[in-house]
């Protein structure tokens, strides 16, 4: 095609303090094209989307719309420029009815109604309050609202997630027809099948930069996976583990999870965790791993299934219950775990004061000794003694783990502990996890970086769409296999459920049935 692009973004960069979320992203969308935007977790997809839709502003880069440079400062400005997003979380105002929501955004009602019918919802009452509408329908309404103003570029973020099969089908059909009508769609999805069925080209992001633009054609799946992973596709070494370690008879399970269900986010997940092992959890963003960890940590109550600790079933109502069972949770977001304005010592010693009987005077010498040994063990750089917020990210992360080492927790749930920290610290954390396992502790380790699996884990649990896809022994968990599994394609199914397979294949269907549960 020689037509000039409708949307042309280049050199887009965004920093959050010292962290670069986007370094050099570019995206060029032709008129009438359905363009996929792909990338592994943290590659910068969502940041790019936010910049394109005016939710945040870029530090550098150029955005041309129909060849004209536009400065998109707010969602309203993006709207005027003809760029309309449909976010993963519906952006209808929950407490207003549908009609008021339309008026708020200046959306014409009749075209909206027409689109809603077209998208497979014949009996919508515009007087319904958004809060009372099921999530799946709400997402479709969001789409219809965007379609009603006939935008030049429609940006769909995981549009079919949480949609039952019939709605998803309609949505995909409508999206395809948008392209035929000469309008463009940017389509973000984790589902290869949809991308294969729908898109013309795909832009792949990795580490905040665009690493390739590919035409969607048979066999491109491998290439996309390769682009997403970068050069790391070479098989990394399996973590050195002593033979004795391997030969040990399987220990009694420390934690057994049976048919765990949390709302609509997690369903029917079963696995166990033994003493002396590091079990990895691999999943794309928002596939239910957050809920899994929160349920094990006692932060949320599961809606079904059982958790057994040392063979006896437990019901956690507060994290203190989990802690009493020896289960400690290290959240992925450090700001969630640390009292940032307090010292390293106070942060590490925090669990000691939690119980009512420990509210009295603190035995300072004993505390110092315990904390010092934990600091020593994790090699925390405490030169910036004053406040935890002055430590580097890596050291902060170590503090969150040191707390539970000082408290001698038997099981540690680590949620992506190496996100956004330097390579050296990462190595130390891998080492620490192995060491903990060697001492008979158990670790459940969610990671967004697949290469870590080989370095640290004994087994890998892969979750997709709130369901267990597979449990790999580490020997078989090379990155391409994990990546495929993370996209919902189980081991050995590659030939059948590849990128160009029938869109109504098994994974699709199972997801659809998940979503159908979400719709009361």
């Amino acid at each position, binding site marked *: 095609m020689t037509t000039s692009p409708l949307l042309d973004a280049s050199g887009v960069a965004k920093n959050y303090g010292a962290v670069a979320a986007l370094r050099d992203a570019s995206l060029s969308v032709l008129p009438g094209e359905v363009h996929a935007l792909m990338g592994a977790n943290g590659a910068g997809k969502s940041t790019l989307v936010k910049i394109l839709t005016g939710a945040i502003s870029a530090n550098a880069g150029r955005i041309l719309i129909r060849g004209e440079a536009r400065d998109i400062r707010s969602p309203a400005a993006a709207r005027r420029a003809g760029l309309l997003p449909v976010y993963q979380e519906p952006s209808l105002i929950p407490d207003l009815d549908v009609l008021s929501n339309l008026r708020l955004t200046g959306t014409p009602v009749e075209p909206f109604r027409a689109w809603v019918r077209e998208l497979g919802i014949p009996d919508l009452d515009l007087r319904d309050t958004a809060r009372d509408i099921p999530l799946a329908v709400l997402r479709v309404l969001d789409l219809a609202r965007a379609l009603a103003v006939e935008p030049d570029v429609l940006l769909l973020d995981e549009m079919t997630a949480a949609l039952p099969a019939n709605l998803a089908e309609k949505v995909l059909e409508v999206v395809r027809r948008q392209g035929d009508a000469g309008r463009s769609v940017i389509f973000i999805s984790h589902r290869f099948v949809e991308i294969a069925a729908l898109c013309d080209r795909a832009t792949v992001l990795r580490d905040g930069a665009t690493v390739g633009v590919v035409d969607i054609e048979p066999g491109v799946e491998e290439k996309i996976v390769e682009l997403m992973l970068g050069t790391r596709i070479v098989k990394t070494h399996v973590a050195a583990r002593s033979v004795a370690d391997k030969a040990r008879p399987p220990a009694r399970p420390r934690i057994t999870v049976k048919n765990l269900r949390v709302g609509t986010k997690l369903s029917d997940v079963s696995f166990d965790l033994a003493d002396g092992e590091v079990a990895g959890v691999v999943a794309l963003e928002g596939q239910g791993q957050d809920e899994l960890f929160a349920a094990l940590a006692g932060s949320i109550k599961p809606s079904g299934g059982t958790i057994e600790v040392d063979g006896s079933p437990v019901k956690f109502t507060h994290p203190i219950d989990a*802690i009493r069972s020896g289960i400690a949770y290290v959240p992925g977001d450090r700001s*969630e775990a640390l009292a940032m304005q307090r010292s390293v010592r106070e942060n590490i010693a925090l*669990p000691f*004061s939690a119980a009512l009987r420990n509210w009295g005077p603190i035995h300072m010498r004993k505390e110092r000794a315990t904390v010092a040994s934990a600091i020593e063990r994790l090699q925390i750089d405490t030169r910036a003694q004053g406040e935890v917020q002055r430590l580097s990210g890596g050291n902060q992360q170590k503090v969150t783990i040191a707390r539970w080492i000082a408290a001698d927790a038997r099981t540690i749930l680590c949620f992506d502990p190496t996100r956004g920290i330097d390579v050296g610290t990462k190595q130390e954390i891998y080492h620490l996890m192995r060491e903990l396992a060697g001492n008979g502790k158990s670790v459940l380790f969610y990671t967004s970086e697949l290469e870590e699996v080989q370095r640290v884990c004994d087994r890998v649990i892969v979750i997709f769409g709130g369901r267990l896809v597979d449990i790999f022994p580490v020997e078989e968990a090379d990155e391409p296999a994990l990546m495929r599994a993370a996209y919902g394609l189980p081991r050995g199914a590659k030939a059948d459920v590849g990128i160009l397979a029938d869109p109504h294949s098994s994974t699709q269907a199972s997801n659809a049935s998940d979503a159908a549960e979400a719709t009361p």
Partner: protein
Amino acid sequence: MSSTAITPSPLPLGRRAKRFMADRPLIPLIILLVILVVILQILRPGIVNERWIANTIKFAIPLAILAGCQTMTMLTGGIDLSVGTVATMSAFIMATQIVNQDPAVAFLLAMMPAVLIGLVNGIGVGVFRVHPLIMTLGTTLIGTGCLQVYQRTVIASGAKIPDFLAWLGTGVTPMLGFALPNALLLFVPLAALIVFTLARTGFGRLLYAVGDNERATRLSGVQYWQVITALYVTSSLLAGITGLLYIGLIKAPSLSLAEPLVLPSVAAAVIGGTSIFGGRGGYTGTIIGALILTVLTTLLTILQMPEGARRILFGLIVLFVTAAYLRIVEDK
């Protein structure tokens, strides 16, 4: 999110100054206090003498204890507006019950409403998660109502100020060539206890931690409602004790005895460097804050500044200090 760590460059002067303020808030406070005293001395040469100092301390102490209540509640991100009413209730009940009762019984009776109000505050804030401001304002209303009803029942028996309280509130004891107010006998151990609690006990730790990051404390196994309930009961007890001290100082029981101290107590804690958002601050700063406000009040009186202007000033101080504090924190 992928990360590219940037090595920290030497901090610019402005940020260093902010860091200094954040680390050592006491030094600028003491400087401010000295400046105020100097201004006072310039405006009224000779006013700053031994008697004036003793007087200033006497009036600063009740304020400082109430500001201690605010400091502790503010560390958790709360506020306790009921301290004025609680202090008044204790004082009033003490002054009226002492007429017919044994001092110990009168004391226990005087402390009862403090415990009750603290308990209600704590449950409202800790269990029901009502905003502390609204909750303590509500109990203030109820407390005031109860006090008015109580007043009618004791109107016949009259009131007197126990000699001991008068001695504690107004008396001075010459010591080492200085006339030291007797109130220090109560205040010094109390202040030491508060400072120790905040710095060296599990409870104190939790106050800071809960105010800094409640989610983190929850993940560490802390039960929020326990901490908050204990906190508001403690705060109320302190307020009750302040009431007893204050009645000894003012010597006139009334239904709005300690009410004028409420706003200054908030202001003293804020000036003293305790963050109204929680997690940062300490009691020593608050004590100096209370002294600053007492001196400032003298100064405003000398300048014949009306009560209205003083309130405006207190309001602006709270707003300005909070906004400034926010800048320091954001620029970490």
